[in-house]
């Protein structure tokens, strides 16, 4: 039993750590540069459930010993994901969302207020949190219209699994610019990014 649980922690990292992380980073960079576009992620990582393969791959790509990670209640569970992240990425897990460089969100609908995450300072707006939110898909949810830097006129995205009042939460985040959090949506096979500069409106109103 002890061997099995240890096994789940030490396995499931990238097959080729350098190249896999580079490939995921490239896809994420493209997603950030063109908000709302859906970028396929090929390399997967298998973390303890319920952290999905793409969210896990993003965590391995982005997190290291200098980036405290916060896990929401859905992912914190028995601590297995925290130990997995500790082993493969060296990343410390924190209880304090304000101290986190990255927040992994397993349960999007219960995300709640974004205020508890670091939003950066005017001297260092980069000292803000990036939220990686696991969502089921990017096409079957409420239709959103995205505008802002990196988007020619506007683009559409329909992610499932975000909180009901998401556009209001996001408008509050926009108002903090140049501070504010950035968000990455991870489906089981792809990512889309919502940097703090992206403005979001509900398409049907």
């Amino acid at each position, binding site marked *: 039993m002890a061997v099995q649980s240890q096994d789940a922690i*030490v396995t499931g990292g990238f097959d080729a750590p350098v190249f896999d992380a580079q490939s995921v980073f490239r896809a994420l960079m493209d997603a950030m540069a063109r908000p709302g576009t859906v970028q396929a992620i090929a390399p997967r990582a298998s973390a303890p459930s319920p952290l999905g393969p793409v969210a896990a791959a993003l965590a391995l790509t982005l997190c*290291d*010993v*200098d980036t405290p990670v916060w896990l929401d209640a859905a992912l914190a569970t028995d601590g297995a994901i925290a*130990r997995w992240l*500790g*082993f493969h990425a*060296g990343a410390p897990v924190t209880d304090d969302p304000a101290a986190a460089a990255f927040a992994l969100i397993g349960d999007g609908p219960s995300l709640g207020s974004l205020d508890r995450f670091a939003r950066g300072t005017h001297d*260092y707006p980069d000292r803000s949190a990036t939220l990686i939110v696991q969502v089921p898909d990017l096409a079957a949810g409420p239709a959103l219209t995205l505008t802002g830097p990196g988007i020619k006129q506007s683009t559409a995205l329909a992610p499932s699994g975000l909180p009901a009042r998401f556009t209001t939460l996001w408008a509050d985040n926009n108002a903090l610019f140049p501070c504010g959090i950035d968000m990455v949506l991870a489906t089981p096979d792809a990512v889309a990014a919502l940097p703090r500069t992206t403005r979001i409106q509900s398409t049907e109103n």
Partner: protein
Amino acid sequence: MYVAVKGGEKAIRNAHRLLADRRRGDRSVPALTLTQITCQLALAIDRVMSEGALYDRDLAALAVKQARGDMIEAIFLVRAYRTTLPRFGYSEPVDTGAMHIERRISATYKDLPGGQMLGPTFDYTHRLLDPELAGDAAVPDAERRDGEPARAMRVSDILAQDGLIEGDCDAQTEMPGDITREPMEFPMERDTRLQSLSRGDEGFLLALAYSTQRGYARSHPFAGEIRIGEVEVAVDMPELGFAVTIGRVQLTECQMINQFKGSSKAPPQFTRGYGLVFGQSERKAMAMALCDRAMRARELGEDIVAPAQDEEFVISHCDNVQASGFVEHLKLPHYVDFQAELELVRTMRAEHESRRDAGEPMPEAAE
């Protein structure tokens, strides 16, 4: 106007090839091995490790060889290399009290417990060049004296009890700052000052330390203790659930003891400056301790009157990689900048001449 100029690729390529040729020199002379450098130029390696802020003797030796013995170039190479490696974590703070002593002296207490052990020192040598070393004369093994303990308490631990010497500051602190992760901000805390000093340029810190002795922020220093030796490095491994010793590093530690008249913040007592440096680097550790003490002026309520007490001046200029980068960038092409300045001087010259010809009064010297 911006002018893009291309060219020079061939010249650069050939210059690098020439560098490689000159580095190797006369091919009939055997090439230096890294082991020869680590064993026989050990203190050069220590300086490269200390100022490169990376403990790895073989890498330092490679850097010294590649840099043709130019220490600052070697330090630059080591610094550049370290940026390519991921950081696994942090060690537990090393315990210099448990050091395997190779040298340990005190200039303040003759009969300190553990004794005065000179170790492999240049002190008391006559600084006469030794022609024997030009060859490969046999060297006798070191003398032995068995049965002596290899550990010794730190002088600061022995003397802290009577209250006349300040103790170590509070050990209760969160994560220490890290100048390799966060931009420097002033005023700076002592933890990041010490980190900067430990990798600071030996020559610069030595000169500043000397200035404090010559009256620029005089602090009446005594070398309370200097110790050199190996300490164990332990790292907490989360996958195991406990800390494991992962090896040893050689360090030089210096405790300076300074007379202090007292201020509104502290009573008269002896205060301390601290130096801790990779390898056997005694001069550097002493200079570091003197500079550390000088920069504690604000904390101890002393007037800041001298360069060595000005932390922004000392810390901003003690890094020789930064300093050489900025000084040496001046040799890169500034053709366009200079053209603009030339234009400006021509205009000023023309105005100057027309004013002189018109008999107008000349302005006083300007920049």
